[in-house]
């Protein structure tokens, strides 16, 4: 059911779209062209007929003059020699028929229905059907002059236009046929063009198929595809890069976990085995259990931290955003670490002001607390850790500065890596599992910000940059 439903909702194929559009365009073009050519043919025939009827009516009028002058009584009968399919009719002003050609249409009706004009050819001519034949004709009033003896006549001329109409008809039929054939060919060509045009897509697809999880380093070459597909290929490559990055990180993550857990597990195993190796006093057993408990506590903290990291990095939509007062947050952190810092003879100071930022309070607190504890830990005696808040339209910056030794430049970028410790030898007692800064980074990035570190001979400065609420709204 659902399949059928999606079938209907699925966008029409590209081939169908292009072919349909070409078909519609061709039809419109043909209809316009057809209309124009038929119209101009009709006009051409009308002009021809008009000329001929003009000549005919002139001859009739001349003949009338001859009849009147008595030169030739029969002039009217053969006034129109040599014109085939042409008929004429002459009446006097009173409406009495003076002459009516045999075999033609009843021209007296034409005279009766149309008010005769003064000269032929200066008006639209009438087309009518009579006895299954088509005629075009007009009626003309001839004012008597000296030549005509002062009398007024009405002359009607008409011609059979059946041949013209037959020609037009066959012209139309021929045009329809030609158009159908041409259009069929055009649509076929369009379809072929689409297929041909899609060839690069199919080829790209075949290339994409080759990319398996073990070959994530493969990239498509944007120069190999038509320009229209270049952007698609570039986006695909970007996506691939992100996937590869994630994949590599995941692999490293698993390796890290295994590696980091190996040490404490080895410790625990050794300790327990040795303890059980020979009978001991209750006090000694208790000692071993306490020691195990501490080790396990560390492991459990590390696991929680790694889970937290995995969650923050994979599920960035999970922030519970509220307006967070950074100053208040930093003060809270200071309050927490105050005694500890005092113990180490390190003082804490807060400079600057910042309005509220949109953030997950709990997470930001964690990030700040990690950075501040880190700073305190690396500050020499009788020195101060300084936290500075700066806010402008687009960003809010928190810098955490502590005096202390220079951190080598080549180490700086690795500080935010998981499990990275500047000094691997002192990894246990004081420093944590090496996840603190990785957690800071993931929290700040989950908030759409970034974190930086720089270090010189006098001090080390960590900077958290967060988008300000107003800046974010503008995006």
């Amino acid at each position, binding site marked *: 059911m659902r399949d059928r439903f999606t079938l209907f909702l699925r966008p029409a194929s590209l081939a169908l779209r292009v072919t349909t559009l070409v078909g519609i365009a061709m039809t419109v073009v043909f209809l316009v062209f057809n209309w124009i050519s038929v119209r101009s043919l009709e006009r051409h025939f009308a002009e021809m007929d008009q000329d001929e009827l003009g000549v005919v009516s002139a001859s009739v009028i001349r003949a009338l003059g001859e009849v009147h002058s008595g030169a030739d009584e029969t002039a009217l009968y053969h006034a129109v020699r040599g014109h085939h399919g042409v008929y004429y009719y002459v009446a006097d002003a009173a409406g009495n028929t003076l002459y009516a050609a045999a075999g033609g249409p009843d021209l007296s009706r034409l005279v009766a229905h149309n008010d005769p004009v003064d000269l032929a050819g200066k008006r639209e001519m009438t087309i009518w059907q009579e006895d299954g034949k088509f005629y075009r004709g007009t009626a003309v009033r001839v004012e008597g002059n000296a030549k005509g003896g002062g009398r007024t006549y009405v002359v009607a001329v008409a011609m059979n236009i059946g041949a013209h109409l037959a020609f037009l008809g066959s012209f139309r039929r021929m045009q329809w046929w030609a158009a159908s054939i041409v259009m069929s060919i055009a649509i076929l060509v369009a379809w072929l063009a689409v297929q041909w045009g899609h060839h690069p897509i199919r080829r790209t697809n075949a290339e994409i198929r080759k990319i398996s999880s073990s070959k994530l380093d493969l990239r498509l070459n944007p120069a190999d595809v038509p320009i229209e597909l270049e952007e698609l290929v570039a986006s695909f490559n970007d996506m691939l890069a992100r996937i590869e990055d994630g994949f590599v990180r995941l692999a490293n993550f698993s390796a890290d976990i295994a590696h980091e857990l190996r040490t404490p597990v080895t410790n625990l195993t050794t300790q327990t085995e040795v303890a059980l190796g020979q009978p001991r006093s209750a006090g000694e057993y208790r000692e071993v259990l*306490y020691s195990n408990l501490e080790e396990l506590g560390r492991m459990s903290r590390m696991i929680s931290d790694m889970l937290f990291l995995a969650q923050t990095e994979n599920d960035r939509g999970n922030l519970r955003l509220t307006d967070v007062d950074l100053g208040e947050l930093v003060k809270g952190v200071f309050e*927490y*670490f105050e005694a500890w810092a005092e113990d180490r003879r390190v003082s804490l100071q807060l400079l600057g002001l910042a309005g509220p930022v949109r953030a997950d309070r709990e997470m930001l607190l964690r990030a700040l607390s990690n950075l501040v504890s880190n700073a305190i830990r690396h500050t020499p005696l009788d020195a101060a850790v300084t936290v500075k808040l700066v806010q402008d339209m687009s960003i809010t910056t928190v810098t955490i500065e502590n005096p202390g030794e220079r951190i080598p430049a080549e180490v700086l970028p690795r500080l935010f890596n998981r499990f990275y410790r500047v000094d691997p030898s002192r990894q246990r007692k004081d420093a944590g599992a090496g996840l603190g800064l990785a957690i800071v980074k993931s929290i700040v990035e989950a908030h759409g910000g970034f974190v930086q570190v720089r270090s010189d001979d006098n001090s080390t400065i960590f900077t958290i940059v967060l988008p300000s609420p107003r800046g974010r709204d503008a995006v």
Partner: protein
Amino acid sequence: MKLLVVEDESKMADYVRQGLMEAGFIVDLARNGLDGHMMAMNERYDLIILDVMLSGMDGWRILQAMRASGVQVPVLFLTARSSVDDRVRGLELGADDYLTKPFAFSELLARVRTLLRRGNAPTHHDRIQIADLELDLARRRATRAGRRINLTNKEFALLELLARRRSEVLPRSLIASQIWDMNFASDTNVIDVAIRRLRAKIDDDFEPKLIQTVRGMGYTLDIPDEG
């Protein structure tokens, strides 16, 4: 106090039961979801500790069924996943608290006691006295052996927490969360420093020493056992 533990991981279940029993509770244990559901519906407990991932019937459904039939006993649920969704879901279904595995037993015990206390009318004493230590909660003053002791706000809060939960082992994480609102594990010894300072003020010059370190677990305040 009678507790029900619904947990299908047998080693963990056994130790949780033992630990809770040794802490003075009566503990029933259900080793799968269906038993847990039946026991939760048919017996009266003061608190239920419910694992989310269970065979037979998961913790969510047990919780749902209980709340649907009006069983209002406090529920603490245990989850191996710490995703926000899980937490929100549990709390929406009417759980009272949660703990993410791995957790420390002392943490579990502390939470259990908190939940049980929440049910009863909180003991709102104005004064707490332990040995010759006296806390005037209204005026936020502490005296030991009649001598006034100057404490900072946080020090007093810490002392009050320990005193209110006399003889309970309070894990460092619980102290950090209750006193400083830091709800995450820190790899610093901030709590130890704070306790040391508090000790310097209320214990160093006096006997008996009231604040005790429970190694690997946390701190407790009580009159030490004789011997």
